[in-house]
């Protein structure tokens, strides 16, 4: 480990970190924006969800590098290629949480809202989505972490990120660079995750004093393990 290498290359590491942040957050955000309408429809019409889930699971099973390569003919060796691919993965992990979150809204609360004269849209926006929020953010956390980590794979098709440090370090047989790349990706993922946890706390003042398992964010079932398998 050559510690002096880090400050000497500080500006390049910072540059790569910024690129990695962009490649990690943009897909998670797009994934969320796509998951919301799909999840709302799936929560409303039960028949709609199983086929959608099947499609997203199949997409999720495609290795990331294969998906990047498959997108080259249409999108080339660009940021867009990586963002589109990672958006698909984000969608796959966020969507189940949107559905689970909306389904977790207690039936008596939904019914009370209707009975008091909420229209369906207003009820969705002011009652159901806020209550589903913690579970949705739980999915978003997995989406962000996996996107940040998968973004480095984009380096293999030449899209710059902290992944550059792995590839370059390997080619130059220089372990320090590889270690810095790995530590950077992990630190970045943890930082983003922490920010989302804080965001959830801010958005859910009503859960702050709640004790016990009800206050925990429900992790998407199976998603973390799956995310591990393709990274």
């Amino acid at each position, binding site marked *: 480990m050559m510690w002096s290498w880090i400050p000497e290359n500080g500006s390049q590491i910072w540059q790569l970190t910024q690129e990695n942040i962009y490649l990690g957050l943009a897909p998670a955000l797009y994934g969320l924006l796509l998951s919301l309408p799909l999840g709302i429809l799936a929560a409303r019409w039960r028949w709609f969800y199983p086929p959608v889930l099947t499609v997203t699971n199949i997409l999720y099973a495609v290795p990331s590098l294969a998906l990047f390569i498959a997108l080259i003919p249409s999108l080339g060796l660009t940021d867009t290629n990586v963002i589109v691919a990672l958006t698909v993965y984000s969608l796959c992990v966020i969507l189940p949480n949107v559905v689970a979150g909306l389904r977790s809204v*207690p039936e008596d609360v939904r*019914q*009370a809202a209707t*009975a*008091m*004269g909420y229209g369906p849209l207003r009820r969705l926006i002011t*009652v159901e989505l806020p209550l589903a929020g913690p579970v949705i953010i739980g999915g978003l956390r997995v989406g962000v972490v996996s996107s940040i980590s998968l973004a480095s794979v984009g380096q293999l098709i030449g899209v710059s990120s902290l992944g550059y440090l792995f590839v370059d370090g390997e080619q130059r047989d220089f372990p320090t660079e590889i270690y810095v790349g790995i530590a950077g990706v992990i630190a970045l993922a943890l930082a983003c995750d922490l920010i989302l946890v804080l965001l959830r706390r801010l958005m*859910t003042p009503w859960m702050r004093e709640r004790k016990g398992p009800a206050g925990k964010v429900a992790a998407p079932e199976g998603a973390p393990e799956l995310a591990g398998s393709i990274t």
Partner: protein
Amino acid sequence: MITFERVTKRYPDGTVAVHALDLDVPAGQTMVLVGPSGCGKTTSLRMINRLIEPTEGRILLDGQDVRKQDQARLRRGIGYVIQQAGLFPHRTVQDNIATVPVLLGTSRSAARARAREMLALVGLDQDLATRYPHQLSGGQQQRVGVARALAADPPVLLMDEPFSAVDPLVRGSLQDELIALQAQLHKTIVLVTHDIEEAIKVGDRIALFHPHGTIAQVGPPEELLGAPADSYVADFVGFDRGIRRLSFVPATGLPLDDGLVLDAATTVEQARTRDQGEQWLLVTADSRPAGWVPVERLAGLPGDMPLSQVPAEGFGHAFIVGSESLRVALDAAVLSPAGVAIGVDGDGRVLGLASFEDLRAAITAASKQELAVLAGGPGQGVGASQDDDVITEPVIGEEPGGQPQAVTGQEDSQPASSAGAAP
């Protein structure tokens, strides 16, 4: 006024939840829909605010067909309370209560001010305004649910098993509060319950459903208890309906005797000279009951000892002569070691004692009179309504809306006399 006209609800699978229901809910009264689960009572309730749409027939709210009104607007004009309160977990108590006023366009600050008034109305502390629902007990949540339903002052209140999820003690006090609240607000209330006791307690009228969506009997509680339409109704209201019916007979008519009542300052010697073969003496302090002393216990005590120093037995509870029922008086006699009920005034001062024999005579008289009222046609109604007046007058005179029971007592006489005139 809510009117069901031949309302039927049939589900696509052929299940009939409600069959050709005709029912009038008079304005300002509490109508309880009661019956076994699956009898269509909740379906009937939900058709009023169109959470469920009827298959046939129509429901009129003040003469207007509810299906011809805008759904959201209709619902904002009808209060709705459900079993688990259904409070919004992500909103504070005051914002929960402010829900409908805000939907109706009231500014948030005005709606919150209104919410705080409602908190006081349902007997909750102002400190709770900024709490979240999960920080409240079940009973408090249910009170907030009632406050939320009443916040926009709707003329109609629908309550779907409102007290089923709380423990019996809290349920009892919530029922008492509902009765007191209703005496003050005069809403048209439709309340669904499977608990006949609750129906009898809070209802001005009860609609008892058969298991499959038809009504077995509609009428004031004392009519269901006193003259069940058939064996189904008799079974449903229960085998002790004879005793429960006494809840509707005021204790005002009981003869009261004060021969056994002695002040605490009375000496043992004085008490002995009064002995007329009684076994128990009621000792009072400040005119209020202190305890029962068995006469045999006086033997061997110094003659100048005041009765306040003689060990006494607890007296259980007394009954308020002006406002409570024969049932309370009977219960007081059963729980008393002396087998005698203590009658007190509104301030708890002893007015006199009623023995089992007095109670038996009063119960027999009440049953005869009630049978006459229920059996009597318009021709015999005169005598019945006179009797009603005799019973009702002191109730109104002595306890103007003091206790929830007083309210029940007052309203008793109306259905009873109308029952006499109607058939």
